[in-house]
């Protein structure tokens, strides 16, 4: 029973944190909320018998990726001016329409989901099983994922390097 309660608590935290993240005007605050949301999702993963996924969620998502965000935001150095602008952009007339659309989408999803029955399985799926599956039937997907990562690596390196070069040049120009 505790676990079920835990699930609902985690779910609530995730949702609230996400909403907060989406509505913040300060990027760092938003990011913190996002991390909270991710951690809550990790808890859910853990609760529904996917401990491996939960671990990855914390380590890679909340850890690596979010830290990347932090770095970039720090590099951009947005400051108070950015906050004001964000506040300006978040007028109700801007978000009322999209909110309606999102609502509709949610209702549709709800309608689809509502037909589903049954609890999640009682047994946990271990990391070993995931590993076997990854390098078994899904080996091609793994290869593609690795290619994707490589592409991302090269791409970000390229973009980032040009940024730095230009920056250096301009600094020299000043």
């Amino acid at each position, binding site marked *: 029973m505790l676990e079920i309660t835990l699930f609902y608590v985690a779910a609530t935290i995730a949702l609230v944190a996400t909403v907060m993240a989406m509505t913040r005007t300060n990027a760092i605050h938003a990011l913190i909320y996002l991390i909270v949301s991710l951690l809550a999702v990790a808890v859910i993963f853990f609760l529904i018998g996917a401990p491996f996924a939960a671990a990855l969620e914390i380590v890679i998502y909340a850890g690596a990726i979010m830290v990347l965000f932090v770095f970039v935001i720090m590099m951009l150095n947005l400051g108070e001016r950015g906050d004001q602008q964000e506040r300006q952009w978040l007028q109700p007339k801007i978000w009322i*329409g*999209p909110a309606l*659309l*999102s609502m*509709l*989408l949610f209702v*549709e999803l709800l*309608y*689809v989901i509502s*037909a589903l029955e049954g609890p999640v399985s009682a047994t946990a799926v271990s990391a070993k099983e995931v590993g076997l599956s990854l390098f078994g039937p899904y080996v091609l997907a793994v290869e593609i994922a690795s290619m994707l990562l490589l592409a991302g690596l090269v791409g970000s390196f390229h973009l980032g390097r040009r940024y730095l070069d230009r920056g250096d040049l301009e600094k020299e120009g000043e």
Partner: protein
Amino acid sequence: MMFELVWLIPFIPLCSSVLLMLTAGNLPRLLIGSLGVGSVGIAALLTLITGIYFMAEPVPFELTLWSWMQVGNFAPSVAFYFDGLTLVMMSVITGVGFLIHLFSTEFMDQDHSYARYFAYLNMFVAAMLILVMADNLLLLYLGWEGVGVCSYLLVGFWYKNSANGQAARKAFIVTRIGDTAMALGLFLLFTELGTLDIQAMTTVAKETWQVGDNMPLIACLLLLGGAVGKSAQLPLHTWLPDAMAGPTPVSALIHAATMVTAGVYLIARTNGLFLLAPTAMMAVAIIGIATSLMAAFTALMQSDIKRILAYSTISQIGYMFLALGVGAWTAGIFHLMTHAFFKALLFLGSGAIIHCLHHEHNIFKMGGLRSRMPVTFWSFMIGSAALAALPMTSGFFSKDQILLQAYLLPGMGPYFWIAGLVGALLTAMYSFRLVFIVFFGKLNIEPDRDTGWRMAIPLTVLCGLSLIGGYFVIPVQAVFPPLSDEHPALWVEYISILVPVIGLLLAYLIFHSRQLRVDGIVDSKIGQLLHRFWFSGWGIDWLYDQLFVRPYYGLSTMLKSEPVDAMYSLIVAINQTFNQLLSEAQSGRMRWYIVSMVFGLLVLISLALQISPEVL
């Protein structure tokens, strides 16, 4: 055998014409003149010889040159048919044509485009000969259109003046309206009778149709349309007065002696059909007499010497139509011939005056020319006498016949006769009005020369013909159905003779001795109005301008910008609007993309749920 060679008669002028065109004026003037006159002269000579042969043995003759085209049972040939009627027409065309060609050599002496003139004129003679010699209606139509084009070319001969071009186009298009009716008539005749060969057609028509049927009536009315156009009768007469823009010998040849009588020839030639349609005959007679009176009134008011003669021509052809309409075929053709003589004479005479008076056309600026241009004066005297049908002139014999025959027509006859008499009275008045004003009174403009021999000879010969032409006997009895030997009462004949003389007297009193003052009438309001009305040719030109010409111009200008294209432009505009909308959508604004994606997603999911609810 001479008849085998009749094809040479139109062929020689045609050759001469083509030769003149090809050499494009690079020949010496003397040679050009000789070619032009000589070719028609030879044609006239050949016609004379053929005529002598024919008179010796008057049997109609057919000569097929080649099969023009053959499509199914439509097989017109290029073939000539030769009978008395053809002979009369050919004699007039080549004989009067020759004289006018000769006259032209002097009249056009100073002109820059000497060769072009004779090329056209020869071509006209050739086309006119083909018209009258044609064995079938299609070949006749060829000649018919051919003379139309030549008339167009010659009216607009002095092309640098736009007004001439205007007149030429008017002449062509107005006659073309009639021609189109005639073409439709040919379609109808062929569709119904299966042939366009005139002799065969007449035979078949008599077998298939009864007198008074609708089909022959429609066909005849369509042919009449063509005749009315070509012969300048109501309602298609408006082109002829304007056509006087051409050189005067052209007016003499085309617009007095030959081409304008083609309509008379056509009706006479197809008399077999017209006899099947009494209503059409009546229409011919009514058109004829109405035109005759209308034109006579107009002629009385004109001041341009050529326009007087032009309206007089319209009026005289009206008499011919009347003759045809009442069944006096022979009289009609006879009047055609005598009219060719005296009207050519008058036109040539007026040409001589115009030539010697620096292209002056207004009769009120002339006067007293009697002593200065004696040859022309006598020509005019004789010509006017014949035109007015004074006794013993050629015109007297022909017009008298027409009037008497008209009187004999049961029913409408006497009315036609009276109207004809009024016309005759007016004719005598306007023709002598012309003579008195131009040749008597005081001299206004001094002519700078008198006529040379090349003008004098044709005038003299035509004078002779106008005087004695009435004694000719034309060999057309075999062509037309015989007339009854009935004679009207003697008083009718006396009145017919007397009326022109009264006209002459009136003209003398009004225009020469001025003993009869008409100024009061002329100056009154009604007189002024009538004068203007008649002077403008009963306002018919104005009426047509309002009814047809302007609307056509308007329509054409309206359509110039292509309303149909607007339809396609609309398609283009719709496409462009879509294009614009789509490129708006492709704005590069990310959130817009996202929103539309979401929207699309929503729609797709809803559709999927709608279509296959079983996914649930």
